[in-house]
């Protein structure tokens, strides 16, 4: 087990290195010059050239890459070209809102989606099943910004129950924190619910056909025990896999949701950085996201052995 984890962590480093190189090259070959953006609209070409030189953007690509890579290896993600603030500080400042939104969405989505999937499988072909599957198609096909604006209109502008936008730190109290996260969580969670609910249903349907389920029924176990203990546990591996894969969906969704609800998270940070070509921030955030994604998938792989004792590493 330990050697497997070590091997996977080594792979993680390799993946992050490749991501780092890819992102660096992609950014530097794409159109856009941070010096021109910094200088402002009325700046002369001479002023832009001077800023480029000052920022080291005129250096050969290899020199720039090495400078960045050496910093990253020593744990320094660099400094924002625009604000002169360390990227790590900017990320830390934005971590709480993004983690809050992502974790709350996970909890909300997994809780609802698994329940819906189990019910749909149990009542397969019924009106409930069709309604739930119809809902999941809708949830999956509606863009987050459409859902977001719709929810804002109903719950924030018309009913005035919830705030339109913004974020309150947890330190200001759980109540305000939660109030500001309800609409973003529902917005972000819909697609995730749809994905997990469908997978749960499919996986449960397969398991419910197994002999041991028939045996359990014959032994007279209650429906609840049969579904939750015998069926769901055995259907768990594909569900967990989809939850893990869904993290990428979540990361992409966070970027849009944070923009729509004006949440000062990492998603907003990276969107702003892309529009102004703030290379160190973009590189730092993508490295972070890729690291999170790879680690979540490692955790998912490890969790298989907990659910299914036949799986050993």
């Amino acid at each position, binding site marked *: 087990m330990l050697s497997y984890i070590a091997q996977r962590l080594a792979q993680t480093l390799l993946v992050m290195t490749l991501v780092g190189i890819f992102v660096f090259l992609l950014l530097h070959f794409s159109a856009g010059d941070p010096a021109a953006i910094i200088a402002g609209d009325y700046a002369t070409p001479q002023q832009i050239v001077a800023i480029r030189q000052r920022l080291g953007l005129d250096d050969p690509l290899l020199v720039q890459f090495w400078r960045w890579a050496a910093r990253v290896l020593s744990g320094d993600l660099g400094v924002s070209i625009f604000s002169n603030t360390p990227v790590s500080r900017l990320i830390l400042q934005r971590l709480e809102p993004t983690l809050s939104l992502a974790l709350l969405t996970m909890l909300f989505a997994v809780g609802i989606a698994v329940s819906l999937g189990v019910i749909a499988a149990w009542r397969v072909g019924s009106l409930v099943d069709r309604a739930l599957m119809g809902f999941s198609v809708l949830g999956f096909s509606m863009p987050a910004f459409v859902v977001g604006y719709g929810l804002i209109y109903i719950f924030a502008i018309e009913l005035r129950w919830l705030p339109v936008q913004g974020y309150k730190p947890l330190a200001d*109290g759980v109540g305000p924190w939660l109030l500001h996260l309800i609409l973003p969580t529902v917005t972000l969670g819909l697609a995730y619910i749809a994905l997990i609910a469908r997978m749960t249903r499919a996986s449960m349907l397969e398991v419910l056909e197994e002999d041991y389920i028939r045996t359990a029924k014959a032994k007279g176990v209650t429906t609840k025990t049969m579904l939750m203990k015998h069926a769901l546990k055995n259907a768990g591996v594909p569900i967990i896999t989809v939850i893990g894969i869904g993290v990428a969906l979540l990361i992409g969704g966070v970027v849009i949701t944070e923009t729509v609800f004006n949440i000062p998270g990492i998603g907003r940070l990276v969107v702003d950085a892309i529009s102004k070509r703030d290379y160190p921030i973009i590189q730092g955030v993508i490295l972070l996201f890729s690291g999170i994604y790879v680690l979540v998938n490692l955790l998912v792989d490890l969790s298989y052995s907990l659910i299914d004792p036949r799986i050993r590493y």
Partner: protein
Amino acid sequence: MTTTRRRFVQGSLAGALTAAPARLRAQTTPPVSRTVRAVLHGDLRVFDPVWTTANMTSYHAAMVYDTLFGVDDKFEPKPQMVSKYSLSDDRKTYSFELRDGLRFTDGTPVTARDCVASIRRWGARDGGGQHMMARLADTPVKDDKSFQLVMKEPYSLAVEWLAKAATNACYIMREKEAQTDPMQQIQTIIGSGPFVMNQDAVVQGQRYVYDKNPNYVPRSEPAVFTSGGKVVNVDRVVYENIADEATAIAAIRAGEIDMIEYPNVDLLSSLEGEKEIKLEVLNKQGQLGWARVNWLHPPFNNVKARQAMLYLIHPTEVMKATFGDEKYFKGCSSLFGMGTPMENDANIDWFKGGQNIEKAKQLVKESGYDGRPVVVLHATNIAYMNNAANLIAQWMRQAGFNVSLQASDWGAVITRRAVKSPPDQGGWNVFFTSGSVNAFGNPVALSGHAANGEKGWFGWPSDEKHEAFRDKWAAASNDAERRQIARDMQQNAWDFVPHMYYGQWFQPAALRNLTGLIGMPELIPFWNVKKG
């Protein structure tokens, strides 16, 4: 107090869930009734008003720094930090004395040395400042409160440059910061202005917080533009960077913010029924849409092709596509923008006749245009630029140009516009931008008014006669003389056509229960503002 559904839900949830205590710092947060929350036109990316010409930085600087002079609503310079000043009879020596009570927010007094260092740093970067510095012989400091600018030749524009509100304005910093290389950003934000930046409450890219400077001593005169007393009537101003326009509109409707500088015009109708929200044009001179053509390469290295552009652009149609309601826009025939002191009607027959595609066709033919692709840079992420590019490209095609419309975001356009190579090697032929009309009113300060070839602004127009007019304008001793020179300059300019305009617009701001906001070009001052 009535119980609304919102309060009930908030109260129930908060009561049930507030296990964690709120931070004590909440006690120091001013109440909403004493806080102005404003969504301005962009993010505040840089804090140094010398290092960038970005307007957001200028807004920030006007909060935390003060200027030696301000301008009134006629753009006449008025003393601000200065108590008295004089110009010698030979127009070579300016003498300034600072008023009493000026202090930086670290408690140190503002001295003449701070002012001289700030002027020198600003003068290294600003167009007007550079014009002045090139003629500056010395800056003797007489005592803590007095200094001089000694010029090499008679010069009348120094006070005008020091008073200008348009970016880069000459904000006074501590000598320590002002000695920073002008090409490098300052690291410390300490000014003597009416507000103090609360850096602990700032979330980069999201929220910028300014608290009232309790030690600021405003002038006694009423506040007019950047002149007069900068009296602060609220405890805090927050710049909220809400990137999504629909969210900003929803937030002001719900009372979560108090102001949007430029609400999306497509969404204005949703605000019109709101009793507490007022739509008001703050910048009465407006913005000017600007088409720059590249003089270095065919076809626009030929005057006939440039003249063709004057005839084919239909400003009203471009403006209508973006702003809809005609009360928000008009065409522009003056080189100096409509409504500025230098506006005039010299040589505008091309404008009076309206769009004339046939005439444009004939001029394109006369230019000897050989059908090569004309690269038009198309910024798709800014609505008015997107519409301008689409429409003008179509009219260019009708006039006979073989247009290659190249789409990207604005960030890519401002990189590519600096490329001087031929259009088929990464260069360009046309790009669209905009600027405050106020800036266009000054033929020397606006770098885009220069026609000094490759040393100039993107497009690199070149005309010796135009440059001679600009020098003459700068040396003029009074406004009447300047207006005549401006007329001559325009007469010449619409013959050689340095650039074109595609309309002038007046986008309203949305204000919720705010009064006293000073409407002026290129700045949103938050002194004088009252809430409720």
